[in-house]
């Protein structure tokens, strides 16, 4: 067992576990896009960043790929983390404004403007579909092609490969095409609809606070 501190709580985690897993076990919510419990950690979206270290020596790391260590001190919701997380979600929305998952996340984080030029690429390259196809379906029909600005998810030679069983898992797991945002025009890059109309879900054990939990159980920041 490894002893570490997350948000002031002294906890014990299994050796080899990631900080994200340890936090989730303690009921601490760290928002994430590219993490899925059934798939290998990938660290692509960077939304799950946390502050690691002691005193002045602090750094931001993606918690989904960060293994737990003895004596680690972790802050999952500090001022610095919140600021950087907002920036990351803004950048993701700028490349993918029609994702309801992303728009919901922005609403939860209190983002009220996207400061970057919006270029809809329809993909945030989180790799969920590629990992799902490879690891869960044992298929490997889709993958990344190209690199840099031309990197994208595709099939080889743009034909449906023999390996594809039409399971639809890649669409199901995708944070963009799973639930497309249907808002017609975006104001400052945000649709605004969910921000106002999102149903507030309650925790399994409701204490009536009504403010700490937003849609889908995310903490309201």
């Amino acid at each position, binding site marked *: 067992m490894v002893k570490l501190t997350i948000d002031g709580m002294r906890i014990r985690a299994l050796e080899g576990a990631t900080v994200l897993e340890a936090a989730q076990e303690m009921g601490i919510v760290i928002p994430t896009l590219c993490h899925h419990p059934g798939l290998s950690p990938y660290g692509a979206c960077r939304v799950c960043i946390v502050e690691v270290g002691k005193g002045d020596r602090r750094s931001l790391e993606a918690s989904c790929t960060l293994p737990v260590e003895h004596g680690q001190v972790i802050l999952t919701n500090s001022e610095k983390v919140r600021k950087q997380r907002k920036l990351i979600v803004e950048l993701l929305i700028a490349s993918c404004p029609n994702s309801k998952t992303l728009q919901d996340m922005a609403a939860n984080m209190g983002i009220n403007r996207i400061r970057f030029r919006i270029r809809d690429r329809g993909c945030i390259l989180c790799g969920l579909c590629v990992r799902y196809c490879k690891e869960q379906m044992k298929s490997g029909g889709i993958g990344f092609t190209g690199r840099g600005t031309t990197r994208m998810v595709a*099939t080889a030679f743009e034909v449906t490969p023999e390996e594809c069983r039409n399971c639809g898992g890649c669409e199901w797991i995708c944070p963009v095409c799973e639930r497309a945002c249907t808002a017609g025009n975006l104001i400052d890059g945000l649709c605004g609809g969910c921000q106002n109309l999102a149903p507030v879900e309650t925790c399994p054990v409701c204490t009536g606070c009504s403010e700490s939990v937003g849609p889908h159980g995310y903490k309201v920041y």
Partner: protein
Amino acid sequence: MPRSANKIKSQCQKVAAIVSKCGGDRDSLISILQDIQSEYRYLPEDSLREVAIQLELPLIQVYGVATFFKAFSLKPRGKHMVTVCLGTACHVRGALAMLDEVKRQLGIESGETTEDMRFTLETVNCLGACALAPIVVIDGKYHGHIGPGKVKKILKK
């Protein structure tokens, strides 16, 4: 047997020979692709399919590697590679005018190949030989201080 089928069969045998020469290991995928590229000057679609079968890899993995590296081409390349540097130093010393002259001489845009399959034109962002700017590389040989006037002469060779 029709001629095209024959061609594909010999291609498969060649690919199989290259794969076994490189040890038939998945880790040597890049060196296998390099050998195929030096054999055909590009990576034919059927050869990639054959590599995937031989190495028991999903085709997309082979395709992903082939599209990731700029050294690999999926389109047929000409006999001679003409690479024009458009880095900062070359740009300042008139690489654009020289590139226009190369395009005019060959009658192609960058990234294209002449119809007689003799030349392929490519641009790069810096070759690290800024002292020789503006620079053209033809089949791995560096030609420095090339103005638009000298282009015709070196392309003739």
